[in-house]
């Protein structure tokens, strides 16, 4: 039986974790994430959750312990924010490259100095290259639902990558909203215990995890992460549909669209600000502006093809970027621009991923890269394409 409670975004996270029957939590407090860890501690202490809670001494250790727990095959969770997330950064990479289906809530908060505890997305955006699936919620209901869906997606054998659920500091984390809490039986069916395989630490099958890999193989390991990301695109859609079937709720899949079908102006935005944008669209439409909102529900994997499609049918695009890359511009802005590259001409771009993990790039390789690109150009190829150079196909099969 589902019930409705009035919850902050942080409590919605805690309820999502509880419903997902997480077995190990390791976390360290930071404003404004604190009430997540407090609520989970309460759930564990009063026996409502059957889980181990490691109150670690830092965020670096929080992610390390979460990695350790996840490596034994159990469902593991952590949550952080801002400075804590950056302190954890080394281990954030470790989790994804070790292919562990961890879920982490990130309460998005500005970075110091100067000290600020208020909202922006730069802390989260700083993780965008780490190989985590990254979703940003618009409201507290979506926060809860995204935690549960994230485990399903991350644990799928075609993905095996961790997920971040981002929620805006205070705007969601500390704001009360009615949230429907699905019945445990419903979620148990939707999210069975984590599949026991693969890569778990097991004395019956002693494997070495994460040892040294020479330039001969390293790049293939990285390519497999990219493949997991690509597969996640499909799973995000499938899982969102399935979740809708059991709960009746739809938050979107890779994107969430509001009045886009006839829009001439498109607002592209992520996170809670999308709710405000939707309100604004209604006001603006009354004033005669044909506006729609394309909310990026996921920023990794980036919904490039949907963005390209939607953008090509409008006259102008407004991007509201709550983050920045000094010297590089808005982060979502750059991703949107590269997604639509080529729809209005411009030279063919081949973006080669090459030389990872020390694999040689010699003159011969550069010659081949250029020749290949020229051939593609001559055969009429356009736009931008990412190519992984010289992968060992025989290893990947």
């Amino acid at each position, binding site marked *: 039986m589902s019930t409705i409670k009035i919850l902050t975004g942080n409590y919605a996270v805690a309820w999502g974790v509880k419903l997902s029957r997480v077995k190990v939590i390791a976390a360290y407090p930071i404003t404004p994430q604190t009430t997540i860890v407090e609520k989970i501690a309460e759930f564990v202490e009063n026996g409502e959750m059957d889980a181990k809670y490691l109150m670690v*001494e830092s965020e670096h250790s929080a992610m390390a312990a979460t990695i350790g*727990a996840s490596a034994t095959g159990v469902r593991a969770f952590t949550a952080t924010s801002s400075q804590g997330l950056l302190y954890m950064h080394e281990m954030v990479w470790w989790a994804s490259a070790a292919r562990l289906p961890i879920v982490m809530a990130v309460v998005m908060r500005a970075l110091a100095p100067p000290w600020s505890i208020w909202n922006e997305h730069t802390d989260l955006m700083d993780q965008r290259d780490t190989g985590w699936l990254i979703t940003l919620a618009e409201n507290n209901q979506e926060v809860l639902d995204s935690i549960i869906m994230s485990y399903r997606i991350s644990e799928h054998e075609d993905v095996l990558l961790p997920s971040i659920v981002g929620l805006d500091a205070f705007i969601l984390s500390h704001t009360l909203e009615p949230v429907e809490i699905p019945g445990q039986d419903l979620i148990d069916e939707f999210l069975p215990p984590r599949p026991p395989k693969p890569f778990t630490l097991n*004395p019956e099958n002693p494997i070495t995890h*994460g040892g040294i890999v020479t330039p001969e193989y390293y790049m293939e390991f990285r390519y497999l992460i990219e493949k997991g990301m690509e597969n996640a695109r499909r799973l995000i859609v499938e899982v969102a549909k399935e979740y809708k079937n059991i709960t009746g709720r739809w938050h979107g899949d890779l994107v969430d669209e509001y009045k886009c079908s006839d829009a001439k102006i498109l607002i592209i935005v992520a996170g809670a600000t999308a709710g405000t944008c939707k309100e604004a669209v209604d006001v603006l439409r009354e004033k005669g502006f044909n506006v729609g909102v394309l909310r990026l529900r996921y920023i990794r994997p980036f919904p490039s093809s949907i963005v390209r499609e939607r953008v090509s049918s409008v006259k102008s695009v407004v991007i509201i970027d709550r983050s920045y890359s000094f010297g590089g511009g808005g982060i979502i802005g750059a991703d949107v621009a590269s997604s639509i590259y080529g729809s209005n001409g411009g030279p063919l771009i081949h973006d080669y991923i090459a030389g990872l993990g020390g694999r040689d790039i010699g003159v011969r390789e550069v010659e081949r890269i250029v020749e290949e690109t020229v051939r593609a150009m001559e055969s009429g190829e356009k736009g931008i394409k990412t190519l992984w150079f010289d992968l060992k196909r025989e290893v990947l099969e």
Partner: protein
Amino acid sequence: MVRSEKRGVRIMPLRVMDLDKEEYVLPGNPSCPGCPASLGLRMLGKVLGPKTVLVIPASCSSIIQGVYPKSSIKLPLLNIAFAAAASTAAGIAAGFEAQGKSDINVVVWAGDGGTVDIGVQAISGAAERGDNIIYVCYDNEAYMNTGIQRSGATPFGAWTTTTWTGKKRWKKDMPSIVVAHKVPYVATASIGYIMDFAEKLRKASKYKGFKYIHLLAPCPVGWRFPPNKTIHIGRLAVRTGLWPLYEVEQGVFKLSPICMPLLKKENRIPVIEYLKLQGRFKHLREEDVRRIQEEVDELWDNIRRKLEDARC
């Protein structure tokens, strides 16, 4: 034959024939000749057996395990970031506990840099929480993996590639730092007395909570001595009194039997006999050697006082 007492676990002494016949560190691994780390790890497998999971942070042991797709280690092994070994092991222990698997030893095998320097925060956290792991620091007294740079465990006077004229500060007393966390078991050991190390490992595995063994691991490459002298140097470190072997079991300090005679100064070999065999100390002046000898004598005065206090 385990009989629990109010303080400490008493076990029949371990004999070579009691050790697991299986090899968990395979021959042909890429450690240097005379490597103390591979020797210690080999013993660890033989004492703790197959129900053991290893956590290894960046160190020589990241190399010793070999290069993908091969591995020289026949135990489940999770490589982890330099600073993260203790907390990762804590997570593994929690993960097994959550699954009701209570018979697996979760063991950190870390260098001195990964322990006394960058890893100290995570160790302190795990020790204070009482996470159920065995933490072994194999102490080769420098960052060997990266080319013999000084660590907090490098002793006074030692040459390293970042202390060209000898280290000016003393070695950090890590075992005492761990003792201060009131954990059930802390011990020091030396590669020179491998069965003593084995005994202490076995004892550690009988306790629940955070267990710590600090294993002195003379490294021929970094200490500048011939590779056939690893054991000899490991013994001299003990018999000069520089590296006392002891246990702190449930807060009670116990000098290891090998070290009992060393309470008398005349039974201790002068430190010069240890220092002169190692290239890393060859620049030491007489007064440096004297300072080191004085430091050792003071250390033993303290040990004697500690034992007397315990008795009365």
